[in-house]
């Protein structure tokens, strides 16, 4: 039980780090936009690879998009982390419940994106 709490605390620290990181990235993007006035909007920027490696990195819209992605992925990673925590704590019922939540989320994303 004690271990479980320690792990939960660790997850919450990770979450806070990731949320703060996204805030910083979005802030930088917004400042870039205000300074350069460059608001060339993205048409389809979903390919993460392209954003990470190929994009002209200082284009404000790309920076902001990266910040959004970091933010939006945080809760999903949190669920993944929970599956691991329940598994390690040998709480099989909740390993199953949490995995089901994750599967339904992924399914609805696939359906929604498709």
């Amino acid at each position: 039980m004690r271990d479980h709490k320690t792990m939960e605390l660790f997850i919450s620290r990770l979450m806070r780090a990731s949320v703060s990181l996204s805030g910083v990235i979005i802030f930088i993007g917004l400042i870039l936009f205000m300074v350069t006035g460059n608001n060339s909007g993205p048409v389809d920027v979903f390919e993460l690879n392209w954003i990470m490696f190929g994009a002209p990195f200082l284009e404000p819209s790309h920076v902001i998009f990266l910040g959004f992605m970091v933010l939006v992925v945080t809760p999903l990673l949190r669920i993944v982390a929970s599956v691991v925590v329940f598994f390690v704590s040998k709480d099989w019922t909740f390993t199953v419940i949490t995995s089901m939540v994750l599967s339904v989320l992924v399914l609805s994303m696939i359906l929604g994106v498709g």
Partner: protein
Amino acid sequence: MTPAFTMFALIIAIFSGFLGALLGLGGGVILVPLLVFLLDIPIHYAAGASIIAVVATSSAATSVYVKNEITNTKLGMFLELATTLGALSGASLMSVAGESVLQTLFGASLLYASITMWTQMRNTNKSWTSMPNDWLADKLDLGGDYWDETSGEQVSYGVHHSLPTFLISYIAGIVSGLLGIGGGGIKVPAMNVVSSIPMKVSVATSNFMIGVTASASALVYLRHGYCDFFITAPVVLGTLIGSFFGARSTRHMQGLFLKQLFVVVLIVLGLRMIVSGAGIL
């Protein structure tokens, strides 16, 4: 997109993020009308900004709450199973009733929830009634405890009527799938009144759940380009700031005051839903 516009969007978002995190509502229901009426942003873009803002509220609030050990993760996961299933069936359901009918129904259920909460407060003069775990909650070990800052004691609670709350969460999921709104206005009363869970725990757990549901939709929104980045960026930043403060404040508030504030906000939201469903606004 002037600096003044960005400032206003930021301020509005700080306000809605604060209230959303404080009350477990997610904040979208407060944010969207403010953006539409005060800044003349088309509802389409306001909704896109709001869905990302809801993720911001939830993640910012949850990282504060879990640290304070108020969030009940197990209860959240249990109910989240119902909500995600509901959202999935809601999104894939052909809307049998029209959207305006749904809005009116949703508004009416918010009003019903607020009246129930109010009556309970008047009768007991407390923000929650303590009950033991029911058989299912006992099997799943859903009850918990948390350190209550205002009363200065460790508060233990059980989860009563866990199945009805599970079903209500499913319906909340369907509604959010159909109307694109978070179900905090339904989940918090369900946990607090039906399942006899302390107000602070209900709020924290609702905040946790809302972000999980919203993140899936947010990815879809981003993918389809339903998001104006330069409207959404200040909104998300403001929401993050407001939510951190909102979540920190919950701890220091009396449960009863929190519940009274919740009821007032719920009445306003319910009335707005009904009016908007009737096509007046």
